[in-house]
């Protein structure tokens, strides 16, 4: 015997939980959370700086080998010194950060779109559709992801940012799909979705104009958090020797120089700034993400 569904109405509780747009709550919540606010500002500054400076910077110039300047320590000419090719680390850091941000964003967006699509379809239609999607997801779940990715990277010809993004996204969409599916399933149980169906609204419209907006905040939070993960995603591969060529600087490439003992101990300026930057970026994005999470989860909201 199931419990009778008696939903207690409490206007005041209601007013607390469901404010007009997620955006406003999010804004308020971030403004309230000093750490998140500082993080967000910092992030924007870094991104703005990196993107604007990298337009001015001559990328060819930066990746040009200069044998007269190998392993220069930081100086007024080379703010962060040079690497084993005499290349300016600072310039590489700027372009590397830009590239890593681009990778992070691209992987996040791409895997987000695929995951979202699959999740929405599975969650909304349920039944057999859900079954099929979940079998695919199950299959990906048992893949030894790291290992397969490495194997993949070894196979792909013409390996570059684009290929990397595609390979990564191919494995990362799973978690998004799972999350969205479960949330979509929950939402589909809700009566407004049923209502739309009884009103004769076509499926695609229900999905896009009813379901999607209500998953907004979850999606945003999730994308933010996975952005943090994706920014550093290529570091590991770089370490294993499956990273990008040095002519494509990335934070991972810079960091992976740490494996070289003469750089790790004696020339920390090559790898340390990138490592710190990755750390800072991730912390900032995480802080923002956590604030967003709190904003969307009334229970944890501060204040």
């Amino acid at each position, binding site marked *: 015997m199931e419990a009778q569904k008696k939903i207690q109405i409490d206007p005041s509780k209601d007013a607390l939980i469901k404010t007009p747009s997620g955006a406003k709550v999010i804004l308020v919540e971030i403004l309230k959370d000093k750490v998140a606010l500082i993080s967000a500002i910092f992030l924007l500054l870094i991104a703005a700086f990196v993107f604007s400076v990298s337009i001015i910077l001559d990328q060819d110039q930066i990746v040009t080998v200069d044998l007269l300047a190998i392993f220069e320590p930081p100086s007024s000419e080379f703010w962060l010194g040079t690497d084993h090719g005499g290349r300016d680390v600072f310039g590489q850091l700027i372009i590397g950060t830009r590239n890593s941000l681009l990778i992070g964003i691209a992987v996040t967006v791409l895997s987000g779109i695929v995951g979202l699509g699959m999740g929405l379809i599975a969650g909304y239609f349920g039944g057999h559709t859900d079954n099929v999607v979940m079998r695919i997801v199950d299959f990906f779940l*048992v893949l030894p992801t790291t*290992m397969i990715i490495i194997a993949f990277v070894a196979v792909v010809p013409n390996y570059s940012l684009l290929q990397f993004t595609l390979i990564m996204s191919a494995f990362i969409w799973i978690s998004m799909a799972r999350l969205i599916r479960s949330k979509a399933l929950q939402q589909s149980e809700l009566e407004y979705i049923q209502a739309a169906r009884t009103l004769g609204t076509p499926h695609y419209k229900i999905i896009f104009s009813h379901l999607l907006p209500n998953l907004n905040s979850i999606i945003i939070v999730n994308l933010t958090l996975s952005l943090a993960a994706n920014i550093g995603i290529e570091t590991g591969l770089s370490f294993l020797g499956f990273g990008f060529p040095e002519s494509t600087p990335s934070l991972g490439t810079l960091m992976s120089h740490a494996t070289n003992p003469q750089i790790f101990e004696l020339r920390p300026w090559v790898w340390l700034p990138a*490592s710190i930057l*990755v*750390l800072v970026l991730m912390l900032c994005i995480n802080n923002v993400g956590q604030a967003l999470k709190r904003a969307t989860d009334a*229970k944890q909201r501060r204040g």
Partner: protein
Amino acid sequence: MWKFIVRRMLIAVPQLFFLSILVFILASQMPGDPFTGMIDPSITAERLAELREIHGLNDPWYQQYGRWIGNAITGDFGQSFRYKMDVTELIGDRLLNTAGLGVLTLLFSYLIAIPLGIVSGRFNDTWADRAIAGYTYVGFAVPSFIFGLIALFIFGFRLNWFPVSGSVSPGLVTGTFEYYISKIYHMTLPALSLALITTVGTVQYLRSEIIDIKHKEFILTAKAKGASENRVYNKHIFRNSLLPIAAFFGYEITGILGGSVFIERVFSFPGIGDLLISSINNRDYSVVTALLLLSGCLAVIGTMLSDIILSMVDPRIRIK
């Protein structure tokens, strides 16, 4: 219970089948073959062709696959081109090392994660929670190899507390007590480095789980019974929040396998992660395919284990 396990295994069969095809195609698509690296002007083209023919490398992939899967089912994964020994034997040694590393890692990671998660969840939004959150973010952000390298240089070389490479001291006879002690000693530092990373997820999960359960109505019931704060935590919250962690145990296997690739490299630890990378570099297909398939199996077993544990600890989905 048995029915459940059998059912899970049956589901795993097609998964592993797909995985094997994927893996095999991947391997066969890799540029070069085991003989590409063998550049020796005194070997003639004919000899190379002969060797390629002997190893069946000239057949189309599906024929090679058919042969391979046929043997694989009987447990024969062929020979490693490079190591010239049976893949099963080759992997066997390494697998034991990685397994040991994994177990130790899990142990460390739970030893670290559970107290941290509990403190962080119970006293959420206090300074302790914030400090722990800081640690988890850093752990999340710093790639495992940087962690490993730093640990290696500090504890291995500067302080000389731990051995810096290998899985066992030279000269010890397999099976002796010293041998095992030495093994564990060699695993400690890599395991600790890996654990520092894997801990992060568990801490965060435990924290949010505890915060979640804190707000459940049955906690109110417990309080209404007159249970003290401590009792509420010990009897109701921890237990309830630890169970899903226990159930994650199986899933950790995949994570640790992935992490081992990096850590084994850093510590020159002869495990399967390290073997995978060198086999990919050497185009040692039979090893690559066997390893990927093996990790797939481990992942399947892991998820199955998780399901079983979950179903054992959670009465709501208990298997009849």
